[in-house]
């Protein structure tokens, strides 16, 4: 592995146990940092608004990204469309700290994800299962997150994806060496990475939960299910009291195994974001199905 890739994996390790928050303005970024976010995701619209707005969702205006970078001292991430390597080149030129090649934006390429090895800047990518996670890592992603179903305020898909990845990892650790190539074929994943997971019982990169986390208990649930940390998108700034909810989600992520603390911080947070039952979404509205 090259040195740059190791450094990029290392930055994700420094974010572990923390919360990464979607923000659309410098003011929101400051609120997130004060609440204890370990990084912010600079966006033009949070996923719930992308859903409501429709049309093509693209990388944010560099002006917004620069203003947000200026406003905070914590790492700043930003999203590019799946396969849109020029948007990624732009973000690298802006010296962003992490790029999210994200299904929340409208895909630019239906066959190919970005060849992330061509970049110095690190990438995080979404995954629904182990095969997808390992394909993205094979392309150079240095951090993985569950896809969940962004902008719904419904944690069920993030839970499904995290449980699936965990179960598939566990299964690999029980296989004998001669079974691993067949497993790689079935998972449609690079053999070397399958072998790594079988030997180590974990992904070679940090794995966060994302997509539908709206409450402190949701964040703690994902942590107890084995997430290394959480992304919260619409859950904070589409809720009634963003400051209070942001802080509560950070505390519940650190103290995910202390129910008395989760109880305390969950009190009086006001309304959560408007939420959606996944079954009410039509096939074309499922962001998790974007990418492969």
């Amino acid at each position: 592995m090259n040195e740059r890739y190791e450094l990029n994996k290392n930055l994700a390790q420094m974010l572990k146990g923390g919360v990464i928050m979607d923000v659309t303005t410098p003011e929101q970024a400051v609120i997130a940092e004060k609440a204890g976010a370990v990084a912010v995701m600079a966006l033009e619209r949070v996923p719930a608004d992308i859903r409501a707005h429709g049309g093509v969702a693209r990388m944010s205006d560099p002006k917004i990204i620069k203003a947000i970078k200026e406003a905070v001292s914590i790492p700043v991430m930003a999203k590019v469309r799946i396969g849109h390597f020029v948007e990624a080149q732009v973000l690298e030129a802006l010296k962003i700290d992490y790029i999210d090649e994200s299904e929340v934006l409208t895909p630019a390429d239906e066959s190919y994800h970005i060849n992330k090895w061509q970049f110095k800047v690190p990438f995080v990518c979404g995954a629904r299962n182990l095969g997808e996670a390992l394909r993205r890592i094979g392309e150079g992603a240095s951090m993985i997150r569950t896809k969940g179903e962004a902008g719904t305020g419904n944690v069920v898909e993030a839970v499904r994806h995290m449980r699936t990845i965990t179960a598939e990892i566990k299964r690999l650790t029980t296989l004998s060496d001669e079974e691993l190539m067949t497993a790689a074929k079935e998972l449609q994943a690079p053999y070397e990475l399958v072998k790594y997971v079988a030997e180590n019982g974990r992904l070679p990169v940090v794995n966060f939960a994302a997509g539908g986390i709206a409450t402190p208990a949701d964040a703690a649930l994902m942590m107890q299910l084995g997430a290394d940390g959480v992304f919260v998108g619409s859950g904070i700034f589409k809720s009634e009291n963003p400051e209070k909810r942001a802080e509560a989600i950070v505390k519940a992520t650190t103290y995910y195994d202390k129910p008395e603390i989760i109880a305390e911080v969950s009190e009086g947070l006001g309304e959560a974001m408007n939420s959606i039952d996944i079954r009410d979404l039509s096939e074309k509205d499922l962001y998790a199905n974007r990418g492969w």
Partner: protein
Amino acid sequence: MRVGVLAIQGSVEEHIDKLKRLDGITPVEAKDKETLKRVDALILPGGESTAIGKMLNDFDLKDVIIELYRSGAPIWGTCAGMILMAKHIVNDDKVHLGIMDIKVRRNAYGSQLDSFTTKLSMPDVSKDEIDAVFIRAPYIEDVGENVKVLSRYNGKIVAAREGNLFATSFHPELTNDLSFYKYFLGLQ
């Protein structure tokens, strides 16, 4: 010897894994007062100092750590941990534990694209050069009279010691080298 790793956020398990390789050391993840009170030494890991600092404050953990320092227990901050210990932060109006007489600059090297690895000479710690990983790292701009500079990189101070306090800009928890752990715990 029970060695705690402050387990609010960041490179906690990396430090724990390194400590497990040392004989006679029991690593402990510590994120509440009771656990912090019962350690013989403490590591403040890498992570985001704003996030960890806020939790130290909100969960009233500062005094326990300061008490630990006063009792003479060795305390070592890596990267964010160094910022938490500093009495002065050049580009931040917030001071967290404020126990070590150093003046630090946060994100001193720039964004993630400026993160790097290098080899450092540190005669007190190791006779060989040691690998050092700098991730959006701080450095020390100035030190008080009782602080010993352990290493510099391009003229900037990146490792220092003041009595039982140890600070590194870089992350020994991310390499295979145990020499700083041994130095910190007096196992040389």
